[in-house]
């Protein structure tokens, strides 16, 4: 080293080169700090995602853009800081339309992988449901702007054989978007286009015909260290059912869901026969009880709110259940039905009832009657309507994950969640 210095990382003394990028020092010393936009060979680093934030002498700074100086005191692991990093990733999810269930990059997506690594089960920020385009004009690629997190990797990294840039940032601040030079893009070879798709940390850049990467089980975040029994750093429930010796009671409902989550609960297979010995099902699609007949310990909610009836039922659940758990992406942020949130409701109704291929000519009406509930202007997450105590992600969540959480809520049974059981798709 030309100018060796000493810094402290989480209390440990580490040698570094004066002016070296902190993130490199940290990783070389064997510590782990997550990052999303960082690419070693891009200097100065992009510094756009801020996920690699650490405390430098008590002050939060991005470790990729910070330079090591003698005597620095670096903190990586600190409960508040860990939560802040998590919050930044959650913000990224809420900012765009990251519909993991319908995305072909799912499983290979770095943003998603980061969510799994940090144990993000629900974003604490309200989903913005921005209205962005999907650009089909380029020759080889399709740009899905809903998924772009403005990391700038493509701007710096994607070059034609002549070394010309293809992407650039347009506008500023919150309105920043990635612009594309169609002429340059048309000269990209397939190899270059594939490279662009791979370096994009989300599914924003797709190469036509090549985007469905690999089957379930073979994708980047299905294999490797994550598959070998590693567990997700989940936050465990901080509420539990009352210990009063009575048989525990569960209620379930599917609001604006597809019932996949309920089907997943039944995927316990033979375990269902043991389960009914331990718990009693009250109001649920799984029983014949239509109204709550007693106080319920845990209410399991699938689906968000798409009509007035969903809201009424959800509110009733909040009143009658001690603990409410949202399961599945629909209950957590709206899920697939929420894809209509970027389209005016009127257009959805007109397309279905007036303009569909099989609509009758001249006879068009849109259903509206005292006996059917009102459709809401948007699909709402359950947590926007009532307080929800816990969230289990997935589409649908794995049966094991669901029942581990429920058993913890009911009997305080400890559990751990494998990466293979923690998915957003």
């Amino acid at each position: 080293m030309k100018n060796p210095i000493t810094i402290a990382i989480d209390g440990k003394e580490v040698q570094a080169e004066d002016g070296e990028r902190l993130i490199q020092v940290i990783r070389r010393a064997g510590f782990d700090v997550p990052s999303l936009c960082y690419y070693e060979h891009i200097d100065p680093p992009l510094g756009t995602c801020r996920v690699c934030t650490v405390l430098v002498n008590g002050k939060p700074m991005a470790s990729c853009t910070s330079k090591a100086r003698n005597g620095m005191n670096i903190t990586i692991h600190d409960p508040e800081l860990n939560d802040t990093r998590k919050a930044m990733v959650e913000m990224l999810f809420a900012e765009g339309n990251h519909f993991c269930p319908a995305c072909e990059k799912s499983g290979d997506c770095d943003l998603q992988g980061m969510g799994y690594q940090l144990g993000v089960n629900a974003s604490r920020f309200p989903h913005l449901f921005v209205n962005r385009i999907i650009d089909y004009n380029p020759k080889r690629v399709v740009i899905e702007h809903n998924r772009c997190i403005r990391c700038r990797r493509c701007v710096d990294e994607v070059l034609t054989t002549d070394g010309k840039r293809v992407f650039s940032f347009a506008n500023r601040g919150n309105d920043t978007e990635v612009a594309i030079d169609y002429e340059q893009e048309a000269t990209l070879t397939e190899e270059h286009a594939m490279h662009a798709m791979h370096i994009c940390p989300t599914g924003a850049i797709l190469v036509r015909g090549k985007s469905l990467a690999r089957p379930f089980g073979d994708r980047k975040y299905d294999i490797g260290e994550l598959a070998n029994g590693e567990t997700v750093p989940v936050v465990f429930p901080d509420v539990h059912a009352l210990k009063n010796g009575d048989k525990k009671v569960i209620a379930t409902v599917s609001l604006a869901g597809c019932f996949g989550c309920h089907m997943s609960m039944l995927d316990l297979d033979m375990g269902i026969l043991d389960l009914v010995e331990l718990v009693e099902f009250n109001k649920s699609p799984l029983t014949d009880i239509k109204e709550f007949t007693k106080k319920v310990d845990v209410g399991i909610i699938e689906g968000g709110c798409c009509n007035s009836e969903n809201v009424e039922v959800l509110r009733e659940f909040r009143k009658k259940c001690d603990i409410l758990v949202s399961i599945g992406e629909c209950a957590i942020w709206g899920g697939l039905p929420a894809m209509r949130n970027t389209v005016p409701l009127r257009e959805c109704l007109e397309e279905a009832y007036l303009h569909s291929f099989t609509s009758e000519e001249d006879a068009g009406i849109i259903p509206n009657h005292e006996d059917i509930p009102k459709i809401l202007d948007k699909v709402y997450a359950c947590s926007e309507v009532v307080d929800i105590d816990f969230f289990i992600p997935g589409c649908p969540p794995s049966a094991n994950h669901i029942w581990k959480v429920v058993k913890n809520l009911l009997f305080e049974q400890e559990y751990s969640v494998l990466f293979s059981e923690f998915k957003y798709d």
Partner: protein
Amino acid sequence: MQKVIIEPVTRVEGHGKVTIHLDDEGRVKDSFFHIVEFRGFERFIQGHPYWEAPVLVQRLCGICPVSHHIAAAKAIDQLAGLDPKDLSPTATKIRRLLHYGQIFQSHALHFFYLASPDLLFGVDAPVEKRNVVAVALENKELAKKGILMRKFGQEIIRAIAGKRIHGIAAVPGGVHKHLTLEDRDYFLTGKDLPSVDTMIEWMMEVMAFIKDYHGKNAAWLDSFASYPSGHLGLVNATDGSLELYDGRLRAIDADGNRTLDDIRDVDYLQYFAEGVEPWSFLKFPYLRHLGRENGWSRVGPLARLNVCDSIGTPLAQAEFEIYKNYTGGKPNNHTMHFHWARLIEMLHCAELMQSLLHDPDILSDDILRKGERRPEGIGIVEAPRGTLIHHYQADEKGMITRCNLIVSTTHNNEPMNRAVRWVANNILDGQPKLTDTLLNQVEIAIRAYDPCLSCATHAIGQMPLQAVLYDAAGNVLDERLK
């Protein structure tokens, strides 16, 4: 005028509600089966890349996502320039195996978790008993078989699509991955999962049960909610046999005359239209040349066995002949016979899975074909609950511009309304008091159709019903909660 409200009626695509209107003498004037949810798929899928359709659209339903996945797959194959005959034998067989696996699990779910309590305990059994937990206590062996049969189907799906619910199997022009020897043998050895041979064995036991049950309850089964109707389903293009994956559309009227004569499925638009009523979010498909009043058809197992000429697997064919004989070869319009027909299809799927699992083609890795882009794609399959139509248009750049979906249960919208009307007219009419049995019978009529989501909203029990009877002044005369 009085209005009887039954809400929520579950086991439909979403949630449902029944209202029955009585005149001042308490006679039934009219009845309605309202579907109370609306998604907007046809609009919000516009703008999305066409190759995302199967993964997106299967999330319409968590019980039969594979049906939507496969119908959408056939449609995007066409957008990619390939018709069903252009796919590789391996891709076609893997898709068929997937399809039969999901029909098997879906029918198992409906029969064991839903119908079995009624069939075992009868319609007069108390409410607390009418659920699968009670079945498990009285007949643990039957419950275990039901669970394992559903598991078998789900595992077939998992092996092919990567997970049991909402997996990925289809890509434009083929399937995502081939099966390994290990994948395949898991279903044959019987070691970690009862084998496909066991599935067939168990199905023969279930066939014996249902025929016995029919023998003992013929009067009720042959009359309850029976009414004449048209029937629609796919049949094999060559020999008119039962066809679940790819065939011709055939429809008959209540007497067996052809109303749709083996048309190419891609021509469906020339023959079908959909009506809308203000009181339901679900549309009303009908055959254009017969009009809205008479052009509706039932779909699903009852309809499929009415339109087809034979079944292509030996054990199921033998059962089919017994079933057909029952009505002297004429169309079967008995709603309650849906259950019997459903089980014959389950047996057929088990036999088909057995033969595919022994076919070396499914292990080959020749799974993809390429074609020239087309602007339109139509995919029609027989989902467990009936004929399913997916129709997409995409521009030359790959963006979906328009979409039309006619989901199986939509065809059964009018039939289910008629079934409710039948119960209202024949059972409710003139009754001053609502009893448990009365409400239950409305459910039974609807349940026979196995409307989508029936299991999830009703897996171990009955539909939760609330019936309220108001007198002319709006006072509650009677209120029953189940």
